[in-house]
């Protein structure tokens, strides 16, 4: 039971981290129609910048400064890159961000080298959560902090989108950009802010995720594909769908990783004989922990067969 709770907590904290990434990506996508291929690269940059700042000033200033730096970087990318290709349609925009992801991963290697950097959890948060230990559950304090940051961001995002003027303009520009422009709002600037904001979110995810996992040049590609799965499964452009999908995939990963369940084992337990001679034994003997890396993609395939729009998606393309 204790192990179960702790696994669930691991899954939820990973899922919330995924959601921080997916939220920025979804916001940018539903607003501008641009799939930001470099989103995970900004996540990686967030981790590296935070590592650099924390080696100078400590972790807490990095928690604020790194997302801020990513905000300006994202806004600059939109202003001088994306806006230029916007007139040619969505394909060149997507390709531009794709090329950007190539450049960012190489630049990171030029500046910080090819090996993982020693970006560590701050000493204040290094240890298990004490009140959970009373129930025999060991769960790192830093993971708890990660969850708190994600939930705080979630609430802040919701408040900004529904309770502020700029949030209303963003919501209106989602569906009727021309109308909003006609009312006198600077829609390109709103785009720039949204893109910068999405990148800052990705950067923040990098700041809190980089030391929970590993800060290395491969971190963008490992998380990038999963975030895309989250977006498609949740439904393109749906924040609520992305939230559900992030948690589902986070839990799936954390439970999948520790389970030694396999088809062969199940068949044996109900009395069937499954051994090396059985056809397809290579597939049947695989345990859930061995197939864990494929699980999110299997979910993707399943969703595509059952509900091509995604869980809460409304748009076709």
């Amino acid at each position: 039971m204790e192990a179960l709770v702790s696994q669930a907590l691991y899954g939820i904290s990973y899922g919330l981290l995924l959601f921080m990434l997916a939220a920025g990506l979804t916001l940018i996508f539903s607003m501008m129609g641009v799939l930001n291929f470099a989103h995970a690269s900004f996540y990686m940059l967030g981790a590296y910048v935070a590592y650099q700042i924390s080696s100078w000033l400590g972790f807490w200033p990095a928690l604020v400064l790194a997302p801020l730096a990513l905000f300006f970087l994202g806004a600059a990318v939109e202003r001088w890159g994306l806006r230029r290709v916007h007139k040619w349609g969505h394909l060149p925009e997507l390709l531009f961000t794709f090329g950007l992801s190539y450049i960012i991963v190489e630049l990171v290697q030029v500046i910080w080298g090819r090996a993982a950097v020693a970006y560590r959890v701050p000493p204040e948060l290094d240890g298990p959560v004490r009140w959970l230990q009373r129930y025999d559950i060991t769960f790192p304090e830093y993971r708890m902090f990660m969850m708190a940051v994600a939930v705080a961001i979630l609430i802040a995002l919701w408040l900004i989108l529904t309770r502020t003027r700029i949030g209303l303009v963003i919501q209106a520009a989602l569906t009727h950009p021309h109308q909003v422009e006609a009312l006198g709002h600077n829609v390109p600037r709103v785009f720039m802010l949204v893109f910068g904001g999405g990148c800052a979110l990705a950067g923040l995810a990098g700041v809190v995720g980089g030391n929970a996992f590993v800060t290395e040049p491969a971190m963008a590609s490992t998380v990038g594909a999963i975030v895309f799965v989250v977006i498609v499964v949740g439904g393109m452009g749906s924040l609520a769908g992305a939230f559900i999908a992030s948690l589902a995939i986070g839990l799936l990963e954390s439970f999948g990783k520790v389970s030694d369940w396999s088809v062969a084992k199940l068949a044996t337990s109900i009395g069937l004989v499954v051994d090396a001679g059985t056809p397809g034994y290579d597939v049947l003997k695989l345990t859930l922990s061995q197939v864990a890396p494929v699980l999110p993609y299997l979910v993707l395939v399943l969703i595509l067969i059952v509900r091509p729009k995604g869980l809460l998606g409304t748009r076709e393309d």
Partner: protein
Amino acid sequence: MIGATSMLAFKPINLGRWVVWGLTAVLFLLLPAYFNKGFSLTLLSQMGVTIIFALSYNMLLGQSGMLSFGHAVYSGLGAFFAIHALRWIGAGTLIWPTSLLPLIGGAAGALFGMLFGYLTTRRAGTPFAMITLGIGEMVFAASLMFPGFFGGEGGITADRAVGAPFLGIPGITFGPQVQVYYLIAVWCFASIVAMYALTQTPLGRIANAVRDNPERAEFIGYNPQRVRWLMLILSGFFAGIAGALAAINFEIVSAENVSAIRSGGVLLAAFIGGAAFFFGPILGAVVFVFFAVALSEYTKAWQLYLGVFFVLLVLFAPGGLASLILMNLRVLKFRKFGRLRDPYLGVLLSALALAFGTVLVIELMYHVTLDVGQGPSIRLFGMIFDTSRAPAWTFAGVMIFGAATAFEFYRRRFRQQWHDVQREIEDWVRDNP
């Protein structure tokens, strides 16, 4: 070449087209006479394989408007089936000529195109792109899970010279590289012809319609989903051919063959060449292999240069190299190139200097972060730079600053002239239809 002639000349017997195809064949035939060293032959063989792969990719991107991030799945799985077939040939359990191995690869590619394509082509546009990425990651993750078929980290190796001699001629066993080159060249030429022919068929045409306006294609009675699926199956077939040829060429296939790196690479190749033109990806494949094979011999930062090159093309020439060539040919044809010559010279020279300075800084930085153990000095462009002292960095900085200033100056002049010339040509074309 091919695209240009077919656009400029519409005659019952298209002489230009025969000349272009004939010259291409002769070029393929004669290339090894000049590039007969081991390295350049390998380079040519890889270019041939990449040309097929990039063209098959462009059947999706350029002709059907499908941006795929998982095309290596089809070439990679084709390669795995081909290399297993090659092993069976060696073991004597399969009787099949080595020269026709690409058919096995192609069949495997088409089969998996049928399977995965059924899922991916249910959506178009951006979701298609993301789903192909997901499928690609899935196949890559699965490939590490079944070491029996995929060979795990080490991959599967085979000996390409095990089959019976080609047409019974002794000595032609595809052992020597030059024989492999000719095998690739023949398959490459045949594939180019076949893929070009496909663009002229009703399916090829309706694929263009589905790319441009799926709703209208649906109105005239075609199911866009089905058209996309068919194109993906055919594209998977040619990708499988490319994969099998790569398997013969390298005699090893590993999980890397189905990875996102390969999928991204073929996208870069097709786009750099120009996805809107049939011959664009051929050009792109040549440039890409040059970056990936030739340049990677000299620098660790080749992917950075490739990425920057790609982004610059997306920003300033989204039609790729092919569009650049055709636009300049048009200027030449209208005899207005003289006015562009001086601005061109200024822009190109200052861009060259700017590139030189930037490359210098990147190489110096790379040396500092990665090759610390090899001492502070580095040899670049025939000069020795000491990364631990200021002069090397100052030199690079001054170089970049000066070149950037000059570039900006010439860029403005060039831009002005270029727009003027283009407007004059367009006016003339409009007035003289």
